[in-house]
């Protein structure tokens, strides 16, 4: 009995999420000591505006990766939905909220196209979303030329109510994007870890054939994950457009790599079948705070790829090593049980 309690305690301490929390605390301590302004709550909370889109898309990208797929078209969908939003509002003269809803639908459609080609036609996920990435970012550029505003300036002058989506604050100090992020974390958590759909997602990731034989429509499950991912990208597009106050075709061009980084750093196996929403959420914040903190410490933005790249390699190598070390003990335990 005592041993089991011991094991659980060990399990909690040595979870990957704990390592991420440790990194997070270290970041706050280090950057706080370099620049005390970093520790002010409004600054710390407000920093999420800089990386909210990475956080949002990574959450649902995790679900895609757990089914054994990958979605690298998220960044492109951000740019596309931003352009669709601007065009519908300014050039088609629609109500801004109708435009937002149509915009979210666009994201779902993009995801559905990806998902259909991947799960029903049977093309590799990486290939389809690579094509999707070119297609959606290309469409965004084409749309930007249709607008009466010049492509370089982008469309701006949105109504205040829309700007408040990302610009507003709850209780005067919590920025809205932070609340949006928390809500999405809860939704994604319940969807993946507490619902039947989530179980199916894991099963499809572990063994699609087994999922098929147990009567699960594994094709639809995997297609649905891409639709969710597309939807999340369009949500990120709306939030980012609202935050910047203007829509541009190239909003999400640099997002692809950070998103994959966040998902993988969060402990999701690239081969599928393993991963958690909390891990991804923490990892996205770790990366975001790292970039933000380095900027506040006076490091130029252009150098930020180096620490993020290093963090990714070191973290994944360490995690791989720890999982590798665990194997013999696992075998021993199994033997004991027999």
């Amino acid at each position, binding site marked *: 009995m005592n041993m089991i309690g011991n094991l659980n305690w060990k399990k909690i301490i040595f979870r990957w999420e704990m390592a991420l929390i440790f990194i997070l605390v270290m970041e706050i301590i280090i950057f706080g000591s370099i620049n005390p302004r970093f520790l002010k709550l409004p600054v710390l909370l407000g920093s999420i505006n800089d990386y909210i889109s990475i956080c949002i898309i990574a959450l649902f990208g995790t679900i895609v990766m757990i089914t054994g797929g990958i979605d690298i078209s998220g960044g492109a969908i951000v740019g596309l939905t931003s352009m669709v939003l601007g065009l519908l509002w300014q050039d088609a003269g629609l109500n801004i909220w109708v435009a937002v809803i149509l915009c979210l639908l666009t994201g779902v459609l993009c995801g559905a196209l990806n998902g259909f080609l991947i799960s029903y036609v049977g093309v590799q996920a*990486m290939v389809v979303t690579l094509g999707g990435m070119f297609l959606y970012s290309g469409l965004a550029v084409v749309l930007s*030329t249709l607008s009466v505003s010049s492509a370089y300036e982008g469309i701006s002058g949105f109504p205040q109510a829309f700007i408040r989506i990302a610009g507003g604050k709850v209780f005067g100090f919590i920025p809205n994007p932070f609340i949006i992020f928390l809500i999405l974390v809860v939704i994604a958590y319940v969807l993946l870890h507490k619902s039947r759909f989530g179980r199916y997602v894991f099963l499809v990731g572990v063994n699609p054939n087994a999922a098929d034989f147990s009567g699960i429509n594994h094709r639809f499950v995997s297609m649905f994950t891409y639709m969710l991912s597309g939807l999340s990208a369009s949500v990120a597009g709306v939030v980012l457009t609202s935050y910047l106050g203007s829509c541009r075709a190239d909003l999400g061009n640099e997002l692809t*790599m950070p998103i994959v980084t966040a998902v993988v750093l969060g402990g999701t196996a690239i081969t599928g079948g393993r991963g958690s929403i909390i891990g991804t959420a923490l990892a996205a914040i770790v990366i975001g705070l790292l970039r933000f903190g380095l900027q506040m410490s006076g490091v130029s933005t252009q*150098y930020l790829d180096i620490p993020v790249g290093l963090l990714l*390699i070191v973290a994944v190598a360490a995690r*791989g090593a720890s999982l590798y070390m665990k194997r013999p003990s696992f075998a021993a335990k199994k033997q004991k049980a027999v």
Partner: protein
Amino acid sequence: MNRIVRAITQTRELFTVAFLIILFLGTGIVNPSFLAPDNILLCLNGSVIYILLAIGVSFVITTGDIDVSVGATLGLTAAVCATMIRDGSSLIMASITALTIGALIGLVNGLGVTKLRIPAIIMTLGVNGLVRGSIYVYTEGKWVENLPAVFKSYGQITLAGFVNLFLLITVLIVIGVYLYLNKGKKGKYFAAIGDNMGGATLIGIPVDKTRILAFVLCGVFAALAGIIFASKIGFVTPTAGNGYEMKAIAACVLGGVSLTGGVGSVIGAMFGAIIMSSISRILVFLQFSSNWDDTITGILLIIIVVADALIQKHFKEKARRERLAARDLKALRAFEEMGGDAE
């Protein structure tokens, strides 16, 4: 006719070549000046950098891994090579340095993937960030300009009046790599590992060494592309090569190199790269805005892979049915013989 159709659908490179020819002829029908020899040569010259990148990446993809760091490698090696030449180094020294850097980046990728067991996409993604950051550190965020005119003029050298020097080098490399992969002693190792890594280990192929070699070759080819990039463009920005990694992978996919590994050839990758880089020129000749560039690339990529998947599915299904039918026939014969005996 039937045989030709079957050859085209079963040999993936022929499928790509046929697609390329249709694309060029189609454009030629709308605008005949596209098919002028000068223009076709310009198309080919323009694709040299993509071809080199795609060859390198195809090594890695054939072994079942992936490399998304080639864009950054191209940028860094171009910057290093250009800076050295601007500061008075000889071309040979600069090239050797650039190629060494490319090989080292590849070596780091390969060691991380094979020894540390980091999945290839993650390892190369991380290295991509590292290398891209180093470009800024190396160039201090400035453009590398004022290259000597001699260095920039290499791109204009033509042999026999029409063959560009870079194009000639590239074609020779493609032929060399093709011979190495198909006739060389160890050339088949790459595809064998990509097809079945466990099996390759069991029959004694040095799996880890070959995978590392694939990454190193990929880095070297990216560096070569970087040198040519510096010479052709004439200046190097810190963002040089941004996004080229995705285009190189797309070129491989267009050329029939399967991302699951084991399937594909350099010839296919070359034609894929030519399609990739010709799209913008084709759009100009069709009097389309070049804004459609990425859209068309995406649509072509999706059409080609979907067509490929459907064709493969069809043939698999056909083969399965033939196999089943043959088995049924065999069983029927056996049954008749048995029936005969019983009577």
